[in-house]
């Protein structure tokens, strides 16, 4: 009954470095784009129609690009590099001009998190110079909003996720730390709401579904740990998912909340049902660690793609569980 293993519908190659981060931009008109940040410091903008790199932005003077994203409202690209800069780029009309850059001072691998509060304003959370410190600033004004430093010793910030609650509370921030702890912060109060030790090893990645108030985090061990937020904003640990091989670099939940993808150090992308966390598929193509996964934001759900970027310098694109008949 098991279906044959799926194959990527396409692979993008020529990035010239490990693919640390991927970001789709397919909601608008053509062309649909995929942004990738490479270990060699370049951001490739892939046109998904021609399946070629439309443009390559040498963003961080050769330092590894750790995170890229775009703003919904404008044609602005944000990238974070290991040269301790976060840069904003204007992509209007085929340009790629540097608009702003923010110095973070962080030497870690923690990816930024972006929250658009209004069409013109957005919050950016990033790991700061002190290893356990998180800074949040408002852009484009660059006004600092707050600095969040845990009192307990939890080690370096590994991953963060900023989101806005429906309950009228200000933006909240989830952060994973080196000692395996997860902390929930209230940004407006600048106070820690709850803390839990989700992993014995550093939290490598986390993702959170604000609609279900449920999240999942991965570490360098064989276990994914899922958790929920209760009404008092306490993190409640839930089921674990045990993997075959240890190490997850990134987790991503599809917009429709049906499936979860993990980027494994074992060169594989694994697909889980987000509801039950049942493993659904193993996507095997890459020949080195998978570093990033992303789901596209196509308006037509049938066109939705999954992209996986690997250390083998390739990006694979997959079309999976798109027909609505998937069991996820």
């Amino acid at each position, binding site marked *: 009954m098991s279906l044959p293993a799926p*194959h990527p519908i*396409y*692979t993008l*190659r*020529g990035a010239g470095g490990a693919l640390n981060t991927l970001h789709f931009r397919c909601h608008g008109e053509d062309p649909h784009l995929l942004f990738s940040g490479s270990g060699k410091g370049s951001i490739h903008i892939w046109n998904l129609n021609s*399946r070629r790199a439309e443009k390559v932005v040498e963003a961080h003077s050769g330092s590894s690009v750790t995170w890229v994203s775009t703003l919904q409202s404008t044609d602005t690209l944000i990238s974070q590099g290991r040269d301790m800069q976060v840069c904003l780029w204007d992509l209007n009309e085929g340009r790629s001009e540097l608009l702003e850059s923010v110095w973070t001072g962080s030497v870690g691998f923690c990816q930024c998190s972006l929250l658009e509060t209004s069409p013109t304003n957005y919050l950016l959370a990033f790991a700061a110079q002190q290893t356990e410190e998180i800074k949040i600033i408002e852009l484009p004004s660059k006004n600092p909003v707050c600095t969040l430093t845990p009192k307990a010793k939890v080690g370096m910030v590994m991953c963060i996720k900023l989101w806005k609650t429906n309950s009228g509370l200000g933006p909240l921030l989830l952060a994973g730390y080196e000692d395996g702890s997860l902390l929930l912060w209230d940004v407006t109060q600048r106070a820690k709401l709850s803390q839990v030790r989700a992993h014995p090893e550093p939290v490598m990645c986390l993702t959170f579904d604000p609609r279900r108030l449920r999240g999942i985090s991965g570490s360098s061990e064989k276990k994914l740990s899922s958790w929920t937020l209760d009404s008092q904003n306490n993190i409640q640990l839930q089921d674990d998912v045990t993997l075959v091989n240890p190490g997850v670099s990134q987790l991503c939940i599809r917009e429709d909340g049906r499936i979860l993808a993990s980027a494994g150090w074992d060169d594989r992308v694994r697909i889980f049902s987000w509801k039950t966390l049942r493993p659904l598929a193993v996507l095997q193509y890459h*020949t080195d660690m998978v570093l990033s996964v992303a789901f596209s934001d196509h308006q037509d759900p049938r066109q939705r793609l999954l992209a996986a970027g690997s250390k083998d310098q390739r990006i694979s694109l997959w079309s999976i569980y798109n027909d609505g008949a998937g069991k996820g």
Partner: protein
Amino acid sequence: MSQINDPKVAFAYLRPACVLLTKEPTVANVETLGEQLKEIHDASLQQLQEYVLFPLRFVLKVPQLKKEKLVQAVAEALSYVLEKTCVQSWDTLHDLFSELCLCLCSPTDPGKPADLSEELKSALLRCLDALLHAAYGDIVFKLYEPIMLPGLGAAVSLLLALGEKEKSREVQAAALRCLQSLILHCDCTQEHVIPSSDERCSVGSTMASFLPGIAMAVSRIITGNLRQGHAVTVRAIKVWCGSVGLVMEDAQLQSSKACETPSQELGRIGQLVVQRAPEWVKSTAGKLSVLLKKIISCTSAHRHWRVRLEMVELADHLLVACSQSLRECVGLLLEALVGAVNDEEPKVRERFVVIEKILADVLSENLHSLATSLPRLMRTSNDQKKLFVLKVFLGYFKVLGPLVSVVLNSAAHLERISKALMQVLELDVVDVRIVEERSHGESLERSSGSVGSYAAHIPQKHFLYFTDEKIFSVLMEICRTLGFYGNIYLLTDHFLDLYRQSLVYRKQAAMVLNEMVRGAAGLAMATGAQCLDSGVQGPSASQEDLKVAAVSIMEEYTSLTNWNLITTCEETDGDRQDQQVTENTSFLNSNIWQLCIQLEGLACLAQALGRDFRPLLMTSLYPVLEKAGEETLLVNQAALNSMMCISQACGYSSLKELINDNSDYLLNDISLNLQRLSQHPQAPRVLTVMLAHSDSSLLPLIRDVVQDVLMALDLSYNHSAALFCSVLHALMKALARWFPVSRCRTGGSARSKTSTDDFNCRQFLLDYQKQKDLAEGVGIEVDDTEDLEVPPASEGEDAEDICGPDEKSELPSHLIITKEVAERCVHLLSDPRLQLRLKVLEVLELCVYVLSERENELLPMAHRCWPVLRQRLTADDPLAVLRAFRVLCTLGEACGDFLRRRVSKEVLPRLTSSLTRQAPVSAKAGPVYTHTLAYKLQLAVLQGLGSLCQRLDLGEADLDAVCEACLPYLSCRQPVRLQEACLSVFQHLIQVDPDTFWFTLNELHCPCSYTPPHPDLPPIQLSGMGRPRDEYSDNFYFCLQ
């Protein structure tokens, strides 16, 4: 006032007036009767018709009573009666007709009108018209019997004269109206008798006698007086149209009745009867076309729109009724029609639209019947006839022009036409050669060498039903015209349906689709003004439509089931029954042709879309390349052609550019397909083709895929190693081409050249002196300075080392790839399959060649592959030994003395012993021996041994052994080439150590005696001196020279 309805009452009422009129024929009496008649009901009047007519006719008959007023009154009364009643008796009709004509004509000449008042003439004409309308269906046609010809002729000429010469417009019009009635072309609102086809035919025959007169006179009327008013002109055109339409009607002419000979009873009258035989039709049509030309030139620009409208009607009527018989006039008529398209009067234009439809109906009807009979015609008639029929077929499409799409909307038409094309285009697929011809990759290299001027030879398609190339090109033009005018979506869908429907239609449907798309893009289309609607220019399909159609066609062509066809018989089942073989052959043959047509199709799509095809390369280029790597010659060449076309259409300057620009698409597919090799076994082939056609700029991408290839190979050593070996071979060949090694080879050969050409004694002595000095320690200080320079270099190396072990691998990627490949070769060299081993040896040789650039990489590799290579050299099939020896030579060339000890210890003894063993065999063998493997092996060893010895710098003992083994081959009994090869060995040996070998040779055979230059020196005594001349002498002498 109510009418009298009872016949009896009516009779009683009319009687007195009738009696009175008979007695006293006066105007007053006639008028009284006329008044009374109006009170009688039609039905009663019909019963009393004969009775009433009698007195009136009586008046006309009596000559002395003929006063104009009276006759006019009688005519009016008669008209009234005739308009109200029917004439049922032939006699009445006949008599009245002649009486009226008599009244109209002059007493002297029945063909000329009498000099009467206009009122009287119009009254009489009205009466005549009423009579013709009143005649019953069963008697009216008696009027047209041959016996009536004279009377009828007189009437016709009378009417024509009236119509032409008369001053009064009313009379003219009335006369022409009468003529219209006579030729059954009346356009009034009354009911008319509808003739059966037989009756119509007989009327036509009769009127044929008068056609020349009518046509000429009427055309004079039409073209005559411009001021006569449009009403007359319109009537005249109607008469012309009606008479020509009646006499020249295709339906009549095709039936046999048209040219029945008149019966003998007629006597002289029989001479008047015209037989409408084909010759008559032809000459008449010629005359008519002259008249028509005049008419059209006069009317097409007429000021009154009714006249122009009438012309359109005429053209329409004649085109519908007489398009066959008036073939000469069709052009004129069409012109008249087409001219109306842009008429300023909307009514004329509207009429045209209606007519266009009618015309289209006619043409499409013809088209349909032609399409129906086409397959039969194609089977039975000769090429000349076929060509004509197809041209007619094409002509219909061209004439229909944009209406083609309307015609094709009818399912019946589309079905017929497509089926006809399917049957006509059936291919003949029994040629065995097509299956057997194999490409061996030469074409690949050939094309890569001279891109642009290259055009692969494509054999012609053989069709079942015709051989003439012209027929094929007309057929293709038909397809293009279809695409040009037709609805591309409909056509694509329909023909793709046919394509899917049955294997029988598949090839034809694909051919049609290919040309259709080209036509839809307006390619190779003579955009003619032949079509009906000449207003529209350019193809009907937009670029966007075309793209959609192209994508669907391409997807169908390249889908797995339609693309991965079997074109070669599996080698394993070679021993089958003959019959099976032939069946199988035509099956394979059919597949091959299908692939070729589909490949051509992709090229056609590219041509149709031009640069817009570039995005489609994403999916289409890979399949084409897949076929370019195919072994079957025909497919292979079709694919190459297709590639050329595509690269041209997409605006690439060469194949190389095409492949380089799209290598990312190709490599993506290759890499994906390598992972599912069982479903896509051709993936390695595509890579082979790519490598053959591209250049080193591809290397960064290639490197990525080579990893995939090697991994796939590692995973499937058993199944697809052979396939992969060919890829590796292509890869290494490409690398060798892209990165030619210049250093070691040319240097080596140049050195040997100078030394062989002229052995310089002085240089030798100088060298010797230098060696001696060195040995004695002279000039050692020079070496010291050299030594001093070394340390800084090593410091630099240390500095590099500091950068860390990761940075150390700065090897160029082609060398990295080569190393990886060589590694696989080492594994594969011990494969049990001989063919595979041979292939691997070739790959290994290339690896050695490429790696020879870097000794640091080459030597470890040589070390690793030595054990297996030794196995090949010493304990393998002779074929493998041969190849392995070649590898050894290359290896020796590249590594020099690195292999000296191994060769001398492990390989040389075997080689020399085998040479020694074989020498007597080859010396005694006949001429056939040169075709044996043993001979080839001997030859190869002898050819390579010399340079090998030289490069490896072998020791004296080894050289002696070599010399020992080779000496027998200097015998003139050996095959010539062996002798030559052996001589080369000695030449090399002599270079290594001239003195020793001079001595050795002279010991054996000394051709001349040496006298010492000074008598004090002892005489030279060599053991070879003074020997008799024997089999070795010549070659020894040659060596020593």
